[in-house]
């Protein structure tokens, strides 16, 4: 009897096993929940995940030398296929023979047909300067080019005989490459296949990464030093007064970034308000005006001001609920005011410090407009170079590699923060 009931599962009123009905109801609920978050999920996928993934892909993938996409029709034509074949048949280091040059001639005819000589040349030019015009020149004169091609090409430009150039073309004939990452840390492939540093007068990125990190830490520290007392004052004043003061913190926060940055230019430039005042007061000779703009000082001052609210607000939100009786209790038990602050009050504000510091640091690592406007040459950050490659040199692969390194660096710092302070201790408001 008891066995029978155990085997016979419970059913609902309409005879469906209870378990199945429950599973179905749960599935329906899950589906509904999923459908509710679907728009948000799609939004994040489309606007956030996909572009970042595309950017990361672009940093290791450049098909400038393998594929031509017509900008109007979107038609994709493989290019440089004959040279690629020759590379596949011959091992690294083979002296290019007549067959290789004939393949090159054939490929350049193809380039002419689809008007792709410029982009193919540009891809090679990224790694070996001065080669772009060799492609466009060959493209213009290809119709008059007769065999033997080796002599013909070398007569056109003797660079066509350089083994290095052929090595670069071999590299570029597969679209996947790590060369952009190498370039982003001032390295390049050496002829023997290893890595070597670029010449000193080409080094730029490592130095800029270091400078970006240093300035970001400095700015984070400055916002902390300036923001902590402000937040404390705001948190301890009666609500009416603190609300008034809060407006003063928020007002610049609501003002356009460009307006705030240009105001600093007006204040700090060598013919600016501050210098004029100092000279007018006789504290400074007219020739010794302080250089405070278009250098690192300008960048640090303007960015500290702009990022200050990101430190003050999390600190305030943590400080406000701290019960003042803790400190009073400590004082009544004989602690000095410093001890009471350092042992009782300060530890309770750490989640706010962590949140503020992380916000300010991550924002300043990627900051772009302000250093571009006030940084001169010594106050530029890595983001300005990323913008340069996005907008001016149009080497998007290199820009992507630089951005990916920056992203990686920030993630590592985030992980470190989690290990040291604990991300649970973060309180944003």
């Amino acid at each position, binding site marked *: 009897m008891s066995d029978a009931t155990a085997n016979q599962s419970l059913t609902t009123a309409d005879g469906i096993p209870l378990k199945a009905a429950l599973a179905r109801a749960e599935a329906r609920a899950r589906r509904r929940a999923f459908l509710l978050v679907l728009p948000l999920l799609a939004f994040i996928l489309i606007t956030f995940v996909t572009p970042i993934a595309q950017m990361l892909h672009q940093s290791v993938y450049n098909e400038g030398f393998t594929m031509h996409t017509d900008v109007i029709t979107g038609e994709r034509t493989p290019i440089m296929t004959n040279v690629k074949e020759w590379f596949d048949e011959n091992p690294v280091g083979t002296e290019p023979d007549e067959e290789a040059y004939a393949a090159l001639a054939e490929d350049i005819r193809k380039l002419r047909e689809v008007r792709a000589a410029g982009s193919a040349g540009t891809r090679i030019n990224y790694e070996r300067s001065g080669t772009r*015009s060799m492609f466009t020149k060959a493209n213009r004169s290809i119709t008059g080019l007769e065999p033997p091609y080796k002599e013909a090409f070398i007569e056109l430009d003797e660079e066509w005989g350089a083994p290095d150039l052929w090595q670069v073309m071999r590299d570029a004939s597969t679209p996947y490459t790590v060369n952009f990452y190498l370039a982003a840390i001032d390295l390049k492939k050496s002829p023997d296949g290893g890595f070597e540093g670029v010449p000193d007068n080409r080094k730029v990125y490592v130095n800029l990464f270091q400078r970006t990190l240093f300035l970001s830490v400095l700015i984070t520290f400055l916002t902390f030093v300036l923001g902590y007392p402000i937040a404390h004052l705001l948190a301890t004043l009666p609500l009416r007064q603190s609300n008034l003061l809060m407006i003063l913190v928020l007002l610049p926060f609501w003002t356009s970034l460009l307006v705030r940055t240009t105001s600093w230019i007006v204040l700090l430039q060598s*013919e600016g308000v501050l210098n004029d005042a100092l000279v007018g007061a006789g504290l400074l000779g007219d020739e010794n005006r302080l250089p405070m703009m278009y250098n690192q000082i300008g960048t640090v001052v303007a960015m500290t001001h702009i990022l200050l609210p990101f430190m003050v607000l999390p600190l305030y939100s943590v400080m406000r609920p701290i019960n003042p009786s803790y400190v009073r209790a400590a004082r009544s038990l004989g602690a000095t005011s410093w001890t009471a602050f350092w042992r009782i009050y300060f530890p309770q504000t750490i989640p706010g410090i962590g949140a503020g510091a992380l916000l300010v640091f991550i924002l300043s690592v990627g900051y772009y407009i302000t250093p571009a406007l006030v940084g001169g040459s010594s106050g530029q950050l890595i983001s300005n170079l990323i913008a340069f490659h996005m907008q001016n040199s149009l080497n998007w692969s290199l820009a992507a590699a630089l951005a990916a390194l920056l992203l990686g660096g920030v993630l590592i710092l985030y992980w470190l923060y989690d290990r040291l302070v604990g991300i649970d201790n973060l309180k944003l408001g």
Partner: protein
Amino acid sequence: MKLKSVLMATALAGVAFGAQAQEVTVMSWGGAYTKSQVEAYHKPFTAETGIKVNSVDADNPATPIKAQVEAGNVSVDVADVELSDAVRLCDEGLLELIDHSMLPPAPDGTPATEDFIEGALQDCAVASIVWSTVVSYNSDNVDGTPTSIADFFDTEKFPGKRGLRKSAKATLEMALMADGVPAEEVYDVLDTSEGVDRAFAVLDGIKDDIVWWEAGAQPPQLLADGEVVMSTAYNGRIFNAAVMEEQPLEILWDGQILDFDLFVVPRGAANMESAMEFISFATDTQRLADQAKWISYGPARKSSGELVGLYQDGETEMGPHMPTAEANLENALVNNFEFWVDMDAELNERFNSWLAN
């Protein structure tokens, strides 16, 4: 079915007609230069054809054009770019080819292909003006009168900050000319690594005194503010600030670098026909001469030269202010576009590295 296709065709024609009859978007460099184009080209063009001209600006239109065409989202129909950019973008297949036979002949019947200055007509581009990068100084703030390009790089003789465009192009050439390289040898020297080192050595001498600018409207401002005492600048911007705004700005023609600005049509432009119509309208003899009424850039057609008259103030004779005036050409360099198409990446890389260290 038949009715449907007729309806479709009418609707499509309506869309096409509407799109081309309405407007053409022209991208240029902003400030006094865009204004001169609006007055000399855009307004008369709209008056004659009824096609509305939208004017948009960029620091260098070549950059957004490339991005737009590559992204397949072209919002500009005509862009004003420098020669090396025009050639490079054309090589990369990002510009429409322009049929030179559509350009109107000179008033005396000379065909356009012979009327334009050499180099002004390219496969994908038609030049409108000859402009130049010059050194300008604020005569209120400079003791004495700078007379040669070398004075720009001599902060002992003429103390004070210098403004320079944040780009290797023009900067390196000027540095070499200041170092005594004659204009005709500049690009040969710059083609060697010793030559590049030499140029950077000259720049090293004033590195701490440089204020970098990026938009063409900045140098007149920096000079007027007294933020710099001398600056490289586009000659037309300085002329306008000096004449219209009566700023004490002077131009040093020694070591000027001449270049073309050309109209191009990005591939896939939405209003292609209007764009071509605009270009052929804007680059006829009279329009090019008219532009000189608004800014001191030389017309790219030979036949426009004699039509250039007075500035808009009605009293300034434009002739002597043109970069192409005889007296201004004594030590002038013509920008070598092939050199820059090729070496742009390399030299800017070196330049960025120099800037950052």
